[in-house]
């Protein structure tokens, strides 16, 4: 049934200065890259990537009014959850690379854990503005970890996409997985196309129904909520809106 199930918050973990993980009294089955709709009664309902399944947990960065309200919630309080929804990441081959920009680490850390549990060899390129923005590094311990920061406060100073170019020159990957700002993901896709490497990206759009009916989250003729949020190279090649514009709650175009 496509209606929120109200779950009690089991505990809340602070991940960085503006990010918290909320765990619930429930285990779920989900693929990395899938999302749930989180309902705060009488306020709104928004999509968040699944980050943990056993117990179920979502990780939320404080950005707008909804996430700010979420951040004020604590154990014992209740939230409505629908899902998991959408088409997640598909693990390919044996050796993979993930590239995270900023809060893209939220779904990608789950992917890395899943890939490692299936004995994939994983390189994780994690880009952040500064050292204080990094989190979930403990989930990436068994991966080959490359950190980049804009200010050089951790890892290499520079862009994650440059680190990816370097890696693709010396290593061969079966697939590159990315999540982060869309302009960055577009660049990752271009780099992969030039290198002839398969790529999967997780797109974000203003979402309403979450189940492929209302059309609000369409990118070209695909629904991000049902056909996505993860799209592969073959799909991305056909998209004219990827990296070009988003739509707001009215459906008006907002150019990147």
């Amino acid at each position, binding site marked *: 049934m496509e209606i929120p199930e109200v779950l009690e918050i089991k505990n809340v973990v602070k991940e960085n200065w503006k990010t918290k993980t909320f765990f619930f009294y429930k285990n779920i089955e989900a693929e990395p890259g899938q999302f749930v709709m989180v309902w705060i009664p009488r306020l709104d309902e928004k999509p968040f990537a699944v980050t943990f399944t056993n117990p179920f947990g979502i990780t939320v960065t404080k950005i707008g009014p909804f996430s700010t309200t979420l951040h004020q919630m604590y154990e014992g309080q*209740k939230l409505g959850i629908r899902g998991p929804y959408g088409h997640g990441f598909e693990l390919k081959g044996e050796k993979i690379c993930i590239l995270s920009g900023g809060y893209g680490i939220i779904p990608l850390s789950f992917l890395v854990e899943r890939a490692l549990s299936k004995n994939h060899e994983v390189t994780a390129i994690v880009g952040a503005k500064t050292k204080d923005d990094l989190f979930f590094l403990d989930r990436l311990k068994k991966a080959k970890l490359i950190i980049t920061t804009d200010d050089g406060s951790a890892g290499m100073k520079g862009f994650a996409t440059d680190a990816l170019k370097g890696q693709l020159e010396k290593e061969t990957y079966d697939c590159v997985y990315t999540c982060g700002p869309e302009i960055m993901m577009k660049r990752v896709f271009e780099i992969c196309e030039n290198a002839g490497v398969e790529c999967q990206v997780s797109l974000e759009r203003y979402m309403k129904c979450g189940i*492929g*009916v209302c*059309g609000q989250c*369409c990118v070209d003729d695909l*629904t991000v909520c049902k056909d996505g949020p993860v799209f592969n190279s073959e799909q991305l090649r056909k998209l004219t809106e990827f990296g070009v514009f988003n739509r707001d709650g009215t459906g008006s175009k907002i150019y990147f």
Partner: protein
Amino acid sequence: MASLEVKIAGLKLRNPTILAAGILGISKKVLERVARSGAGAVTTKSITVKPRKGHNNPIFIQTTKESFLNAVGYSNPGLEAAKKEFENLNDFPVPVIGSLVATDAEEYAYLTENVREIGFKAIEIVLSCPHTPGFGVLAGHSTPETTKEITSAVRKKTKLPLFVKVSPNVMDLGKIVKAAERAGADGITAVNTLGPGMAIDIETGKPVLDFKVGGLSGPALRPIAIRCVYDIYESVRIPIIGVGGITTGKDAIEMMMAGATAVGIGTGIYYRGIDVFKKVCDEMTEFLESHGYSSLDEIIGIAHRD
């Protein structure tokens, strides 16, 4: 092979399935996908003069296996954006119906005049939304008098086939559709969602839809829609697009036997995917052939014969 081709209000459709208003129709590209998925015609999301965000989420929830409630609130980027989004419809593979909503007759006339350049093949005016203040039922548009006033105003501004979308929850449906017909409508779209209804989450004690109430759609609506179409068929001579709970070819056949010339599909996309249109058409063909019918004309309205 039995033909599914139908003619409705001057439009020739390759098959009678039409994407209902408000579902998916945010862009020309996604409408093209619906056409590729087999629809005989497609309807845009309803267009208003100004951009509207609509209601906050949740806007679309399931209440039983066979019913959904929605209160989208006419989310759309407005007239000016629609003109750009839907330009160059000349090469579009199937007719595109422009759905318009406005707060009064004057605004409806303004919208109709201003969507002329878009190239829609028909106009649908929605006088029947159950959940958006200022529009439809909540603005008193679902009476014979206002139906006549708004339909006349729109009729003066367009030569395109004009459909009036009506509500299932009115006592004087016959009078409303007669008023629409007399005011120059070329067809009736029946029905909009039922209600409004409400769902309350019992853990929190709060209504689930952010707007609290919403219109009911899905298979549970079908018997009501069938009855409405049956009644409308008895009341007017103009053709009917039957909408409400259609997910299978058999549902569509039933709707046409009640008197519909074409059928709208919306929530059916949830149950069977975007290619529900092709599935419904294949099932209709199978029915016609196994029952010895050669065209849909032979079944439209047969429930009215003694």
